[in-house]
């Protein structure tokens, strides 16, 4: 290989290239991988000079390329999965990835009508799966490039037109064993008029790196809700990219709960491709110690008459740093767009940091777009009010934090999920 490595300045970047060259196989998407690694080679890891990554400098934050993870022994894998508290027995179908690899014996993927789940690795050995790389082609991003270059396994999920899947479909990611890197890639396609709920869970122990990407498309009239629980180990690095495309009259409800990882970046790209759709992207962030958590949302209103809501609530403690970047793009002729974005942060300690960049980019005139951002500490008056009524300080604080988050959590609707998340918040607050 005589390719240009001039953009690569850190050891981690060079190690990634070496890893790629060593692991290079000749599967069905070899070309796609080559293109992605070439992109990475020319740009390197995102750093603060890259506008989209201004507040999350991976060149500094990611200083090693861990070896690519392998499947642990069956018993170890089972033990690891058993300790994960996802949404428990609520789930219907469940697909489990241990160290980024599909674990069939721990999964339950058949028996739900209208739902097809296959493993990406098994398919890749034969052919290029439908939809893979389609949405990714529109994005230039090094984290996604790395995912494409290294993707090992993932779920190919198809929901048939008109199907109504009653119980949530759970996609569980667990890291176990030695420090390693995992690359999962999912392609999720929801058919016309189908109704489904996904829960996507990340969990693990110790030091590891997760890079996950999802290409999601919803056909006309689909109703999709999606809950992502990022509960990685505090030593882990979590990079995730959700690329979504909504056809007309789709309802999409997305919620992210970020509390894990030493460094995390959750980027969501959503494109309205059909009229009359509505998307709600909510996120809650609970971080402490030295955690760095970046939530980035980009909504493209490419067609008229769509509605988007972005709502991000951050609770920051210790010396953690929160980042919220949101952008609403309204394309020319995307009239009657209604886009709103709110970002609020609550600081629980003195040495926290928060950076916001809520952008509006509007090329059509008959639109209504707005964004708001606020940050501050717990209102002492509110605390006083509660304490004056005999509520101990710790409990009063917990109540106020829960109240702060409730705006995004309660919208989920499902009581059991709401309770689970509130319980998590209480545990996090140590109450």
């Amino acid at each position, binding site marked *: 290989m005589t390719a240009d490595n001039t953009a690569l300045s850190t050891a981690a970047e060079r190690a990634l290239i070496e890893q790629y060259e060593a692991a290079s196989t000749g599967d069905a998407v070899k070309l796609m991988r080559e293109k992605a690694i070439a992109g990475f080679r020319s740009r390197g890891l995102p750093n603060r000079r890259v*506008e989209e990554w201004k507040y999350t400098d991976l060149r500094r934050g990611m200083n090693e390329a861990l070896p690519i993870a392998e499947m642990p022994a069956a018993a170890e894998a089972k033990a690891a999965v058993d300790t994960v508290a996802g949404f428990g027995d609520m789930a219907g179908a469940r697909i489990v990835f241990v160290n980024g690899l599909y674990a069939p014996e721990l999964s339950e993927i058949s028996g739900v009508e209208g739902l097809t789940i296959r493993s990406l690795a098994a398919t890749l050995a034969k052919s290029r799966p439908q939809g893979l790389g389609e949405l990714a082609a529109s994005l230039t991003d090094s984290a996604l490039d790395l995912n494409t270059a290294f993707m090992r396994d993932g779920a190919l999920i198809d929901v048939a037109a008109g199907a109504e899947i009653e119980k949530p479909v759970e996609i569980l990611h667990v890291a176990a064993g030695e420090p390693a890197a995992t690359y999962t890639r999912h392609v999720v396609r929801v058919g016309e008029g189908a109704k489904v709920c996904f829960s996507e869970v990340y969990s693990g122990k110790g030091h590891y790196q997760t890079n996950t990407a999802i290409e999601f498309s919803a056909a006309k009239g689909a109703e999709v809700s999606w809950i992502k629980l990022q509960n990685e180990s505090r030593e882990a690095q979590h990079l995730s990219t959700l690329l979504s495309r909504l056809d007309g009259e789709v309802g999409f409800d997305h919620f992210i709960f970020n509390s894990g990882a030493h460094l995390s970046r959750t980027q969501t790209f959503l494109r309205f491709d059909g009229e009359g759709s509505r998307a709600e992207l909510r996120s809650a962030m609970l971080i402490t110690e030295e955690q760095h958590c970046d939530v980035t949302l980009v909504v493209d209103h490419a067609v008229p008459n769509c509605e988007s809501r972005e709502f991000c609530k951050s609770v920051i403690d210790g010396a953690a740093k929160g980042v919220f970047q949101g952008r609403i793009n309204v394309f*020319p*002729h995307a*009239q009657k767009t209604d886009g709103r974005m709110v970002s609020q*942060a609550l*600081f*629980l*300690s*003195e*040495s*926290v*940091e*928060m*950076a*916001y*960049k*809520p*952008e*509006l*980019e*509007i*090329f*059509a*005139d*008959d*639109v*209504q*777009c*707005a*964004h*708001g*951002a*606020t*940050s*501050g*500490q717990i209102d002492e008056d509110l605390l006083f009010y509660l304490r004056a009524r005999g509520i101990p300080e710790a409990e009063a604080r917990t109540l106020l934090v829960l109240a702060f988050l409730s705006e995004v959590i309660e919208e989920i609707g499902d009581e059991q999920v709401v309770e689970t998340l509130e319980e998590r918040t209480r545990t996090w607050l140590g109450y």
Partner: protein
Amino acid sequence: MPAVQETVDRVREIDVEQYKYGFVTNIESDKAPKGLNEDIIRFISAKKGELEWMLETRLDAYRRWLTMEEPDWARVSYPKIDFNDLYYYSAPKKSGYGLKGLDEVDPELLATYEKLGIPLREQEILAGVEPKNRVAVDAVFDSVSVITTFKEGLAKAGVIFCSISEALREHPDLVKKYLGSVVPISDNFYATLNSAVFSDGSFVYVPEGVRCPMELSTYFRINEQNTGQFERTLIVAEKGAYVSYLEGCTAPQRDESQLHAAVVELVAMEDAEIKYSTVQNWYPGDADGRGGIYNFVTKRGDCRGVRSKISWTQVETGSAITWKYPSCILRGDDSRGEFYSVAISNCHQQIDSGTKMIHLGKNTSSRIISKGISAGKSQNTYRGLVSAHRKASNARNFTQCDNLLIGQDCGAHTVPYIESKNASAVFEHEATTSKISDDQMFYCLQRGLSEEEAVALVVNGFVRDIIQQLPMEFAVESQKLISISLEGSVG
């Protein structure tokens, strides 16, 4: 076809009407050779009769500039500027340094300012206006200051108000102390270029405890073809001082674009207050986007002392391209920064403007109100930064940026950066983008207003918060300017 012709004529009329300052003054001028090199800088420095240190500073800036790249992050696009195809110095022959009084100024020049409605003769000003509304004017024509009025009167109060060239000759130590202390010479590409070749601008020094007895203003006029204007303004308000300063600007209507790269530095010491207002009406280019001024400006105020206050108010209607972020460094405890802006873009204008509020001291507060109005095929971007550093306890910011869209071919963008490193900092930010609602239009039309009048009415309501911040004379002018800028954007 006649109907079509009529429309064409009508549009042309509106276009000409729109920019009534587009005339050219035929006047003999003294120019430096075209291009930029160390000799040109020596030439400018010699013309101004500057001291050695100033020349060295300029050359240092020039050498740094050679190593810098033109920034490309702003949402503006324009053909690459050939910096060697410009005149960096152009002065009317009978003007500037060495003139005794207004009588020696070229009558052609005086006529120009008369036509622009800028009062240069003190007795005339006194005759017409009540003394309390007097305004002292520094008139800058291309690269030189033509005249500064009321200098003696101001001097009695201890206020120094003169062109920066004169200040460099008369008060070199004072200028040396502050020049470049807010905007360092290598701050950014255009500021560095300005530090190398700046020609004229104003200098204001208000000593301790003095409340400047009248409004100060500078009127910038670009006249000569292919020249760049590089103004440099420095305002220093000592402990407890107060000054209100206005700037206005116009340029002739031409097919080529011209460069205006200014640097403005404000220094407010303990308890001082500086109010800086701009009505920017450079030639915006014609309806097809030909010509117009490239306005690349670095403006920054430093609230150095405790309880100091700096307020920026701007009404931006002109320029083909605006790249401008008047900022406040809130260094002193309890200091306050304000930014009020109306940015109106029509036809093919591109605006990328906003502010930076950098909270360094304790209990500092800032307020940003930005109103963008885009019409025609223009692009209007608000770009701003609010940041609180570790030690900026109890910093407060309130930001509101609203955009109004008129017509479906324009764009309005908001790019705010909010960075908080102090938990006790409270930041609030809100932004909206919408068009004039059908209800509002219906209400106005139903009461017999024409569509254009209705738009003007709604727009004036939209920008009222900002206009109220302007000194009275400017407020009236701005209101007119806004309706003229939007002419032809409806229907």
